[in-house]
C-alpha cells in the first residue's frame, strides 16, 4: 500500500465515520465504491484529497444531503432527521443564525457540566422522591462531581470527532434526559411531590445564601416589595399561598411592627408591602417580646382584616405611629429592580 492508497483509505474512513448514524443498508449503498471513486479523483492530480474535496466530514455532509439520507429509519426518524437537516441548512444559509449558532456553541462546555449535575439531580430525585438542587451529603456531592467530570470528558472527547452511531444515540438520549430533568425542575417537582402538597413555609436551605428566605431571622424575609414588570412599585398586593392562606412574613424577627396610625383600621396582614416601622428603644424595653402589647388606642374597634379567613395580623396595632411614609421601613439595600429598558 503506497502513501496515496493510505490517504484514500484514511479519507474514506473519515467519510464512513461521519455517516455512522445512517442505517447500515443506506450507508453501504452510499459508500460501497467510495475508495474506487476517490482513487479516480486522486489519480487526476497530486493534490491531497482533503484540499480538493474538503474535509471528510463536509464531504460526508454533502453526500448525505444529495442522497436524501435516512430513508430506511422509519417515518418519524426520517422526519426528525429531515427537520434537523433543514434546520442545519437554514442556519448555514443565514449569516446571522450562523453567527448565533457559533456563539451558542461556545457555551457547550457549560452545558456539559450542567448536564452532569442534572444527571446527579436525577439520581437524587429517585433516592428522595423529590427534586433537590443541593447535594445534602458528602456521597451525593461526590456523585455530582463524578457525573459532572464524566459529562465534561465525554463532551471534550466528542467535540471535534463525531461519535459512532450507537454512542451518538446514547449521548442524545442522555442529553434528552438532562433536558427533561431541567423541565421537571422548572415545572416545580416530580409527581411524588406536587407543589400544592408542600408546606406553606419555605424550607430554609442552608446552602442557599443568595435568595431571601422566610424564617431566616433578622436576615430573612421581613417584608415584600412587589414591583410590576416595568419597574413600578405596587401597593397593597394581597399574597396567598397554594392553599389560599394569606402569606405572612415574620417581620417581628427584625424588630419591626405593623404601623397603624391611630384611629385607622389595622393594616391587612397580607397586603404587601406591609406598612412596617422599627420598634423604638423604649417600646422594645417596655414590651414583652413574645407578646407585643397593642400600642394604639384600644378605642377603635378593629374591623376584621380582609380577606375573610385571613388570620389577624401577628403584629398588633400600635399607637403613636407617625404618618406611614416616615415610618415606612425601606431596607438599606434598594429593593427596586432597575426597570428594564
Amino acid at each position, binding site marked *: 500500500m503506497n502513501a496515496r492508497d493510505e490517504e484514500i483509505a484514511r479519507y474514506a474512513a473519515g467519510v464512513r465515520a461521519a455517516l455512522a448514524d445512517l442505517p447500515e443498508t443506506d450507508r453501504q449503498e452510499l459508500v460501497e465504491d467510495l475508495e*474506487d*471513486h476517490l482513487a479516480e479523483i486522486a489519480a487526476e492530480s497530486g493534490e491531497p484529497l482533503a484540499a480538493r474535496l474538503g474535509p471528510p466530514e463536509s464531504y460526508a455532509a*454533502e453526500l448525505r*444531503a444529495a442522497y436524501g439520507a435516512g430513508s430506511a429509519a422509519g417515518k418519524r426518524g426520517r422526519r426528525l432527521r429531515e427537520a434537523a437537516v433543514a434546520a442545519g441548512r437554514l442556519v448555514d444559509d443565514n449569516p446571522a443564525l450562523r453567527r448565533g449558532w457559533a456563539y451558542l456553541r461556545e457555551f457547550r462546555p457549560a452545558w456539559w457540566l450542567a448536564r452532569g449535575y442534572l444527571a446527579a439531580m436525577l439520581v437524587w430525585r429517585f433516592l428522595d422522591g423529590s427534586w433537590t438542587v443541593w447535594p445534602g451529603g458528602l456521597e451525593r456531592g461526590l456523585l455530582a462531581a463524578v457525573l459532572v467530570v464524566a459529562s465534561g470528558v465525554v463532551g471534550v472527547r466528542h467535540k471535534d470527532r463525531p461519535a459512532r452511531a450507537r454512542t451518538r444515540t446514547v449521548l442524545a438520549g442522555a442529553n434528552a434526559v438532562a433536558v427533561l430533568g431541567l423541565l421537571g425542575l422548572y415545572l416545580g417537582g416530580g409527581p411524588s411531590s406536587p407543589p400544592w402538597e408542600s408546606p406553606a413555609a419555605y424550607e430554609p436551605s442552608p446552602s442557599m445564601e443568595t435568595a431571601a428566605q422566610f424564617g431566616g431571622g433578622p436576615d430573612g424575609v421581613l417584608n415584600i416589595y412587589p414591583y410590576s414588570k416595568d419597574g413600578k412599585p405596587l401597593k397593597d398586593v394581597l399574597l396567598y399561598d397554594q392553599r389560599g392562606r394569606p402569606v405572612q412574613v415574620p417581620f417581628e424577627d427584625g424588630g419591626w411592627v405593623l404601623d397603624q396610625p391611630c384611629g385607622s383600621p389595622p393594616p391587612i396582614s397580607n397586603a404587601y408591602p406591609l406598612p412596617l416601622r422599627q420598634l423604638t428603644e423604649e417600646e422594645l424595653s417596655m414590651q414583652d417580646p413574645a407578646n407585643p402589647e397593642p400600642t394604639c388606642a384600644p378605642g377603635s374597634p378593629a374591623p376584621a382584616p380582609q380577606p375573610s379567613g385571613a388570620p389577624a395580623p401577628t403584629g398588633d396595632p400600635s399607637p403613636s405611629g407617625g404618618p406611614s411614609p416616615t415610618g415606612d421601613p425601606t431596607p438599606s439595600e434598594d429593593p427596586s429592580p432597575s426597570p428594564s429598558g
Partner: protein
Amino acid sequence: MDTTQLLKGVLDLAVLAVLDRSDSYGYDVVRRLREAGLDEVGDASVYGTLRRLFKAGALTSYVVPSEEGPHRKYYGLNDTGRATLARSAKTWAAFAHTMNDLLDDVEKGSR
C-alpha cells in the same frame, strides 16, 4: 448569484441529462458536468445524487472491471429515468422561459 444554490434544484436534471447521452460512472459524470460549464458542482453531491436516483429506480447500474485502476460502477437511464428526465426537462424549460421573460424586462429597463 450563488450558482451552488441554483444547482441544488437542478442537479438531478443535470445528472439525468448527462446519463442520457451515454452511460457513465461517478467520477466521469462529475467531469462531464464541469466540462459542460457547471464548474461548481460538488463531487459528493453528484455521487450522492447518482446513488439516490439509483435507489429511486431511475437508473440501472453495472460494474466494469478495469485491468489498471479501479473498477467502475456505470450508471445508465432506464425507462423510469427517461420518463423522469422528459418530465423534468419540460418543467425546467417552462421555468427557464418564465425567468428569461422576467429578466428580459430587467435588461431593457437598465439600458
